[in-house]
């Protein structure tokens, strides 16, 4: 058995940022366990630009953004094991992992950072009728085939779901010579970033059809076409609007699911909306010494925010390792009108710092206000020209407001139209 102060599960942008921050805070022994052959996570296949605008103030591609952190990790004495899959985390933070070289690894950790990322929602979860032929894949899988393996997964493409990966792949496939016929979105709005709709669809004249879904796949061997239909306000397909579209590929970009199987096995409480752990402002879960950050906690829109959140987790883990448990008085954050979820779900009012609450709204708002209310008092009310489900928002609880709270206090974030 090995001993490490900190075990970081996942070597994507979240894991690397958390490990680096913990190192900076003075944690001596840190190990990153990464499932893939290299550090970097999903960024390695995101060869488009648009990363780093917020964090670095410049526009980078995914691999470039990752490379900056990989270089920083390499300059430290952080141990990295790639091709290593974590199988289990025990009640006492004993981590079991496996790889080809070391076989079974047993690592006793003082603290653990969960940074496993997320996975794409597959076809099976959607109840699309029809055949189970080839040519139906998630947009991320298609992205790997094109960008890493160098093969075309399709020539005539329909994309279901207007999540960011789907939008990015619409442009990518077009640039590679495929015909992207349409992007269908079940909801009356896109779940992706506005900039991606403009740069990936509008610039290439790819139609985005809102309130439209794929109801059936056709083709015995390879996909030959799909039937699409508009949906009513209960999201049920309208029979009279059915339309056949010939295509050999259906790409799905219909949501991301945080990969929390390990988290659940530890018995950590999960937020039903984010599908990630319930955490405090340092991203500590309800299991002492276990922190979570990045897309395993909640799906982010920009990697920059993943980095910043993960630094908090790294700092939190470092404080836990170096100073032990802190005095804590928790107050839950509560979602008000229009707010789907809040992260962190609870705040230690003894924290002493400003606390940023991240959230997403449930629909598109124009000229609405984001209101933070603590103990019934409006702390801030910010006017927003536009709020959209595809974009993450945040509000800050100032340190002096937190200092005045007690265990019966309330924190509410809501949208006012």
């Amino acid at each position, binding site marked *: 058995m090995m001993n490490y102060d900190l075990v970081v599960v996942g070597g994507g942008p979240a894991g690397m940022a958390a490990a680096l921050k913990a190192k900076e805070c003075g944690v001596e022994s840190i190990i990153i366990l990464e*499932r893939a052959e290299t550090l970097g996570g999903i960024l390695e296949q995101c060869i488009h630009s648009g990363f780093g605008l917020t964090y670095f103030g410049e526009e980078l591609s995914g691999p470039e953004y990752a490379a900056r952190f990989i270089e920083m990790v390499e300059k430290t004495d952080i141990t990295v094991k790639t*091709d290593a*899959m974590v*199988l289990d985390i025990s009640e006492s933070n004993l981590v*079991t992992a*496996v*790889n*080809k*070289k*070391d*076989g*079974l690894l047993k690592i006793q950790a003082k603290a653990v950072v969960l940074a496993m990322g997320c*996975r*794409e929602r*597959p*076809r*099976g*979860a959607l*109840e699309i*009728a*029809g*055949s*189970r*032929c*080839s*040519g139906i*894949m*998630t947009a*991320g*899988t298609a992205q*790997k*085939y*094109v960008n890493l*393996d*160098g*093969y*075309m*997964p*399709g*020539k005539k493409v329909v994309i279901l779901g207007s999540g960011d990966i789907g939008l990015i792949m619409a442009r990518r496939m077009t640039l*590679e*010579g495929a015909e992207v016929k349409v992007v269908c979105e079940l909801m009356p709005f896109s779940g992706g970033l506005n900039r991606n709709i403009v740069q990936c669809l509008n610039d290439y004249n790819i139609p985005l059809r809102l309130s439209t879904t794929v*109801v*059936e*796949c*056709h083709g*015995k*061997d*390879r996909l030959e076409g799909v039937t699409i239909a508009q949906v009513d306000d209960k999201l049920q*397909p309208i029979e009279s609007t059915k339309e056949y579209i010939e295509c050999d590929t259906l790409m799905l970009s219909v949501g991301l699911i945080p*990969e929390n*199987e390990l988290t659940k096995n530890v018995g950590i409480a999960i937020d039903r909306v984010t599908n990630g752990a319930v955490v405090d402002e340092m991203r500590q879960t309800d299991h002492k010494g276990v922190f979570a950050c990045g897309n395993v906690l909640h799906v982010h829109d920009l990697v920059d925010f993943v980095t910043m959140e993960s630094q908090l987790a790294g700092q939190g883990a470092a404080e836990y390792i170096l100073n032990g448990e802190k005095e804590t008085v928790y107050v839950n954050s509560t979602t008000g009108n229009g707010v789907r979820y809040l992260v962190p779900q609870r705040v230690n009012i003894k924290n002493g710092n400003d606390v940023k609450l991240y959230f997403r709204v449930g629909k598109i708002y124009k000229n609405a206000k984001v209101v933070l209310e603590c103990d019934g008092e409006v702390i801030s009310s910010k006017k927003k020209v536009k709020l959209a489900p595809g974009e993450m928002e945040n509000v800050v609880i100032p340190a002096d407001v937190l200092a005045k709270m007690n265990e019966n206090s309330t924190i509410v974030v809501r949208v006012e139209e």
Partner: protein
Amino acid sequence: MCYDVAIIGAGVIGALTARELSRYKLKTALLEARHDVAMGATKANSAIVHAGFDAMPGTLKASFNVKGCEMMPGVCKELSVPYKNNGSLVVAFSEEEMETVKKLYDRGIANGVPQLSVIGKDELKALEPNLADNVCGALRAESAGIVCPYELTIAATENAVTNGVDCIRDAKVEAIDFADGVFTLKTAAGDIKTKYVIDAAGVHSDDIARMIGDESVEIVVRRGEYFILDKSVGNTVSHTIFQCPTKMGKGILVSPTVDGNLLIGPTAEEIDDKDDVSTTPSGLRDVKTFSVKSCPSVSTRNAITSFSGNRAHPVTDDFILGPSKVNPQFIHASGIESPGLSSAPAIAVYLAKVVTDAIGNVEANESFNGERKEVFRFRHATDEERAAAIARNPAYGRIICRCETVTEGEIIDAIRAPAGARDVDGVKRRTRAGMGRCQGGFCGSKVVEILARELGCEINDITKFGDGSNILFDKTK
């Protein structure tokens, strides 16, 4: 070369029959039209080992079912495939349905089904607390069980091949000639000569019979649609829960699977295109509606995937087993709808006997070994077993499928096995890679790479399930 026996169709009947025949010094061929074995009704059914109370006394279905149910645990053990004796319940929702339950009980007793009882509401709810509150009682059959039908078929094929059977895939039979006591099967894999033919071609068995001029077999195709739900709800029920049967079948069931998922379905719809295994919006809706009647907590929000399978319903409503009236060297194994899987071990023994009796003086195959060595399954292994396996072969230390914890070593084993995997779905059925909640989102491309490496081809040659089901086109520009 001329085979003694050629079995047309490598479903559960064909594969188990091939294995039975490999006990003898016979040259046996197992022919399969598709790219892999277990591609028809075998891979898409309820995966139930029925106790045997459904079929009318005196039918082939009744006798083979009861016998097959008794044999199944032993066969599964020999072949190292999972079997679970979980028992079944036919649930009644009214006094009228309780009458049906009692009739089924009487029928079961007449068929010789052991361990049958009629239980009341309290006992039923104690056994299965997640059943609906308006249940009245049930028929309990403790001998019923669950298996994985494609794993059973793959294992039986492997064992048959190990014992000398030739398994020839992509060998669709297009025509059959007969001269001088020998059949010539015109197949996509070339001409195959054989003295005896066993027609186990499932929904196509009537087409095959017609090739020798036997018009007696008439198959109607009934499609059944299902959902597979996530393992997180796999313990909703422990028994297989049936509703009272109707004319079209046994109704919608809710059942655990040997892999820990929950299975709900099937519908029953007669269709014309024998190979159309599409699911339909209305079929999936029916499965949802009717499964909730048994278990209100069942929700397709936990669905991992949906699928459908086509069952070969004989218009005579009973299995068609035995020599053809047109040519006694041609042996029917047709109309094997439910309880076909349950009956399969017994049908296989019967068919082997028909052939060996007809040939006469058949010698035993002394080197026959009916035991199939257990396949290493990382997810089931202890830490010690895992460490030892990785020391033996480091590929057991590389996890490819996260959801089902499948290693590269297991995938390589599946490809290199006798009649091994040659496509992505073949790897999936043999190892469960891609069968979990992400449905191959992560491991799919890795499985493609491993297949290409092992088979010595390019990754764009790899298919999902043979034929034109390629996954990738050309290289990018």
